[in-house]
């Protein structure tokens, strides 16, 4: 476990090297909420407005999840760079087991995501109201599982791609598909309706339904906004499955692939 703690320290130091860049990123996220969402509030279809109680309220939880996703994904870029610059040989030479190394990287990616997301989540609570203690811990637990899963996903992509271009392309595809095929920016019912009308591929509708970003956003909404957003234990299971698959998959891929090159 000591090895994992050292890795956490190493990755957090790297993360804080870009502190001003992070401040810029947070301000962009806040501009999305306090400018874009407020203007969209006035343009919303009245039927939808009644349903979701305004775009600002709807978008605030989605924004916290967006921030979590973007920051937890950052670890992949660092690991891809380490692989290209052959820093991974140094990492492999450290006095820790391969499993500690892999788990440490996945965990630090997730924890960095949680840290980045916290001011956005706080803004969401201030704007929408605070959940009760149990709801609060449940939100944190689900977001942590999601962050670790996202970190695993980005590490799996990072170690499977040999060049920066391939990594950036793969990242772009995953990033935007998961972002836009989710209920982060718009209600799931809207995507389902487009699918029923034959204007949106059913594969993408299904993806939006099982997307952990949708699950996490809608869970926070169910606690802070209430109906029509409902909390279900099945959504917890889906985030748990996502997290387990990508954490274990990334740990396995990290251990196997970096030894090969």
């Amino acid at each position, binding site marked *: 476990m000591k090895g994992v703690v050292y890795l956490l320290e190493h990755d957090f130091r790297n993360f804080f090297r870009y502190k*001003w*860049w992070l*401040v*810029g*990123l947070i*301000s*962009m996220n806040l*501009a*999305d909420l306090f*400018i*874009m969402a*407020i*203007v*969209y*509030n*006035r*343009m*919303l*279809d*009245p039927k*939808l407005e009644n349903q979701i109680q305004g*775009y600002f309220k709807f978008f605030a939880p989605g924004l916290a999840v967006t921030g979590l996703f973007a920051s937890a994904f950052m670890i992949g870029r660092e690991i891809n760079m380490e692989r290209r610059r052959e820093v991974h040989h140094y990492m492999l030479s450290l006095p820790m087991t391969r499993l500690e190394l892999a788990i440490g990287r996945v965990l630090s990616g997730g924890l960095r995501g949680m840290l980045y997301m916290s001011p956005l989540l706080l803004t969401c609570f201030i704007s929408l109201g605070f959940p009760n203690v149990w709801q609060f811990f449940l939100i944190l637990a689900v977001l942590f599982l999601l962050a670790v899963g996202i970190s695993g996903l980005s590490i799996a992509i990072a170690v499977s791609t040999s060049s920066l271009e391939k990594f*950036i*392309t793969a*990242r*772009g*595809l995953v990033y*935007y*598909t998961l*972002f*836009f*095929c989710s209920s982060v*920016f*718009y209600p799931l019912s*809207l*995507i389902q*309706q*487009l699918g029923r009308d034959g*204007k*949106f591929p059913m594969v*993408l509708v299904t993806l939006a339904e099982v997307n952990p970003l949708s699950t996490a956003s809608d869970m926070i909404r169910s606690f802070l906004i209430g109906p029509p957003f409902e909390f279900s234990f099945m959504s917890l299971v889906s985030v748990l499955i996502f997290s387990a698959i990508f954490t274990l998959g990334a740990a396995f891929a990290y251990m196997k692939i970096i030894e090969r090159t």
Partner: protein
Amino acid sequence: MRLIWFASQIALFGLIASRMINVQEVPDYFRYYVAGLSVMTLYSAAIFIGFDIYEEAEHGVFEYLLSLPVSRRQLVLGRSIGGGLRAFIYVGPMIGISLYVIGAVNPLGFLVALFALFLFSFGVSGMSITIAVIIKSSDRFDILMGVLDALIVRLSTAMYPLAFVQAANPVYGGVASLNPVTFAADLFRWGTDIITLDNPLLPLLGVIIFFSVFTFVGIVIYDKRIEGGGWQ
């Protein structure tokens, strides 16, 4: 990456968000959004020239450029126009996709809009160079551009009509009405028959002023700051 972003913005966000918006002022939000997206992409592509300047300073190319038998002013003007043109060529295929999605256009109006986009692109490029040489720190530039990008795009009509920005907050509306992104987006939409403008000369004048300020004032600042090192 930018192409993937652009395609997903159209095919996913634009399509779904257009179902969410229902206002008289924008009967077809999808076309409205796609046109704004082209201007947003042009803006972020033109900003990149500033990052190139830091890379040149880091690799010592700056000294080489200063040793060339061209005047400082020619050098700056060339960089500004080159940056704008490069961005335009880069975003050209995406604008082509937008035009295909938007549909038929009025040729004369479109030519005026295209001219405005050219000037806008040169102006953004000049602005990026000016800020880069004033700041002389790549980290600070990176942050400032990020914040500026967030504000300048969101406080414009790239994504929504001015009336709604004004209704949301009069300060936002004030900034948006003087924003060069607003001028470029409105002219592009006017040229592609998405919106009508009472007087298209006003946004055109706005783009020309923006271009002139950042190209010619940029030249003076660049001229003064180019030598002496101090790059971080």
